[in-house]
C-alpha cells in the first residue's frame, strides 16, 4: 500500500490555497478541520448557513451559548466584526456568488465536476441540508476526500453512480494522494505524492488524469 495523506494533511493542503481575505464556507464534518490549518498572516472570514459571518473557534466546555452555533450544530464564538442575518440573506451570500471558497466532502466526484455527497441511496432517510445550495455560487468549490473508498474503489470517477448534489460544480479536489483541478470537464493533475507513480495513481482514478505539468504534493506532519 502506497503512503497516503491523513485527513489532517488533506485539510492542511486545502487550507494553503485559501487566499487572504477570503469568505469561506466549510461543510460540516471533515471540512471543518481546514480552519485549523489556516496559514499564519492570512485573514479568512467563515460563513455558516444558519446566519453568522466571521465566527471563531469553539468556546471552552461549559461556556457554550447554544443560540450561537454553526451549521453542524456545534457551539462557536464570534470574532470582532461578526454579523448575524436571517436564512434568506445567508443563502443569498451562497448562491449570489459572494463566497470565495466552499470546501465540502464527497462520496464521488466526476471529471465533469459533478458531485455526489448527500445520499448513499434510497435505503436511508434522505437529508440534504445546504449542500445543493453550497455547490452553486462560491467562486471555487473544493472537495477534500480520500482518493478511494474504504474498499478501494475510485472516488474520482467518469460519471457519478450515486445521487447528484450538483452538476458541473467542483473546481478542485484535494485527495489523500493528489491535487486535481477540473478544467473543461477533465481531471487535470496539479500535484501528486512523490512516492506514487503516475501509473499507480491513474490505476486508482476512475477517469483519465491529464498530467502535462505535475508538481510534488508535499505536506508536513500535522
Amino acid at each position, binding site marked *: 500500500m502506497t503512503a497516503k495523506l491523513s485527513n489532517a494533511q488533506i485539510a492542511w493542503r486545502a487550507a494553503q490555497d485559501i487566499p487572504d481575505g477570503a469568505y469561506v464556507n466549510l461543510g460540516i464534518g471533515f471540512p471543518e478541520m481546514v480552519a485549523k490549518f489556516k496559514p499564519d498572516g492570512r485573514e479568512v472570514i467563515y460563513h455558516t448557513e444558519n446566519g453568522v459571518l466571521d465566527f471563531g473557534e469553539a468556546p471552552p466546555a461549559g461556556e457554550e451559548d447554544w443560540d450561537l452555533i454553526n451549521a453542524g450544530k456545534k457551539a462557536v464564538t464570534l470574532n470582532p466584526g461578526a454579523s448575524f442575518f436571517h*436564512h434568506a440573506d445567508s443563502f443569498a451570500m451562497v448562491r449570489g456568488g459572494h463566497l470565495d471558497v466552499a470546501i465540502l466532502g464527497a462520496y464521488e466526484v466526476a471529471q465533469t465536476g459533478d458531485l455526489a455527497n448527500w445520499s448513499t441511496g434510497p435505503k436511508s432517510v434522505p437529508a440534504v441540508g445546504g449542500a445543493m445550495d453550497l455547490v452553486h455560487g462560491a467562486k471555487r468549490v473544493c472537495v477534500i476526500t480520500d482518493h478511494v473508498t474504504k474498499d478501494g474503489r475510485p472516488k474520482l470517477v467518469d460519471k457519478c453512480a450515486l445521487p447528484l448534489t450538483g452538476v458541473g460544480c467542483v473546481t478542485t479536489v484535494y485527495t489523500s494522494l493528489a491535487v486535481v483541478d477540473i478544467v473543461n470537464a477533465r481531471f487535470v493533475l496539479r500535484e501528486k505524492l512523490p512516492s506514487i507513480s503516475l501509473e499507480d495513481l491513474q490505476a486508482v482514478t476512475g477517469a483519465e488524469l491529464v498530467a502535462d505539468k505535475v508538481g510534488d504534493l508535499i505536506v508536513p506532519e500535522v
Partner: protein
Amino acid sequence: MNKIQTDIDEAVAGIEDGMSVMIGGFGGSGAPIELIDALIDRYKRTGSPGNLAIINNNAGNGAVGIAAMIYAGMVAKVVCSFPRSTDSRAFTERYLAGEIELELVPQGTLAERIRAGGSGIPAFYTPTSYGTQLAEGKPVAEFDGRHYVQERWLKADVAIIKAEIADAKGNLTYNKAARNFAPLMAMAAETTIVQASRIVDPGGIDPEHVVTPGIFVDAIVEVAEPAQEEALLRAGAQS
C-alpha cells in the same frame, strides 16, 4: 395597538387540526419550546390540534420540541432540509413506518420559498438542485447560459417563533443565530405568534435595530428565561 397576550394557551388557541405550522429554529437555536409545549399540552388534553404539517429546517431531536410533537402523534407531514440529528428517532421511526410524510427541500431553497411566500412571489428560479433527484418534475429554464429550477412559494396557516425582545406593536429582535428562519416565517404565515424573552414599550427597540417589523406579527407572549432546546437535551430531557 397591543398585540400582547398574557396567556400562552390562548395565544395558540387558533391553531387547529390539519393546519400548516412554520416553527422557527435551526436545531435547538431559536426553537420556541414553550409555544410548542402549549400545543402539545392541548393535544394531550383534547386530541387537537393533530394532523399538522410542520415546516422547519429539521425534524426534531431527542424527545423535546418538534420531536415531542411527533412522539405525541400530532404531526402528519414534515417539510425540512435535514431530518437527521444526534437523536432523530422520533421522526425516523415514523417515517420508516410510513406514518409521516416528508418533503425534503434544500436549505437555501426552503428559506427562499418561505421568503417568496411572504413577499407575494409565487415562484422563482434557483440553480440549486438542477440535475438532481430533488428537481425531478419541476420546470427548468436557461438564463444567460445556465440552468435553473423553478421553485414555488411556501406559506403556512401559522408561524410560531422565538424572539429576544418584542414591543406591543410586534417589532422584534432575536438572540444571535437563533434568528435563522424566524423573520421569513413571520412574513409567510397567515398568523404569526411570537414568544419573546422580554417585552418593552413601543420605542424601547431602536428602529434601526428592529429585525422583524411589527406588520408581520399578530400575537406576542412573554416567556422570560425560555428553555433552550439544546440545553434541555444536554440536561437529559425526556418528553
